[in-house]
């Protein structure tokens, strides 16, 4: 099984987005890159949907708004909000990292690994602080 994976058939070579795994060692750079895409897709689907849902609920008046917000304080609702919170911060910080790269800066491996740690810890701390503030625990 292992040898099969290490020597792919000549005409069945892996295509680049699927290289991580048996053919290519997962690294901080590749994992954060795919996580940027994953968080982007997640935010595109659930983030924009929830933002528009909130605005529409608000535009329906006080009673409709209160009814529309009820499911968000359930356990699945709060899980969605917490995941969205982390996804927003992650995509925000890592997006700025990408914009800095686009100017040709911070591209050395050590710099990229340092900014990766900065993005990960930044989004974790910001998420905890946000959830604690909104939850009223601070």
């Amino acid at each position, binding site marked *: 099984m292992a040898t099969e994976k290490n020597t792919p058939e000549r005409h069945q070579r892996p295509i680049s*987005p699927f290289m991580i795994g048996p053919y290519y060692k997962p690294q901080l750079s590749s994992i954060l890159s795919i996580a940027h*895409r994953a968080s*982007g*897709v997640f*935010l*595109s689907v659930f*983030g*924009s*949907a929830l*933002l*528009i849902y909130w*605005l*529409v609920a*608000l*535009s329906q*008046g*006080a009673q409709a*708004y*209160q009814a529309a917000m009820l499911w968000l304080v359930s356990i699945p609702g709060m899980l969605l909000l917490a995941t969205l919170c982390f996804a*927003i911060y992650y995509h*925000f910080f890592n*997006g*700025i990292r*990408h*914009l800095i790269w*686009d100017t040709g800066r911070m591209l050395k491996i050590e710099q990229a690994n340092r900014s990766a740690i900065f993005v990960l810890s930044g989004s974790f701390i910001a998420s905890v602080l*946000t959830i604690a*503030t*909104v939850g*009223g625990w601070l």
Partner: protein
Amino acid sequence: MKMRHPLAHARGLGSAKSGTSHWWGQRVTALLLIPLVIWMLYVVIVYAGQPFQVIQTFFRQTINSILAILLVLTMLRHAQLGMQVVIEDYVHSQPLETILQLLVKLFAFAGAVTGVLAVIRLAVQ
């Protein structure tokens, strides 16, 4: 020897005929979203738990309506451009890819209309 026609070089549109417009649009919307997302996070953190009337008063201010509309439009355009690349990269069936690309554009457009209309209704109600 340069085989490329000078006109093609001058137009700079490449083989996809769209040049750098997609790449550039993704970056411009990303830059715009930096202040807009900070504003959105501020609104959500400060106003999410507030009573309806407090939020309504906030969104009745013209500056907040403008920022909300800018946020909805910029976010959906950025999302559509991003989803387009993800679909191009991972969906290898031509008919399915075309359907998905059209659906993403349709949802982004419908979302933009719905969001803008909601902000306007909120501002004038």
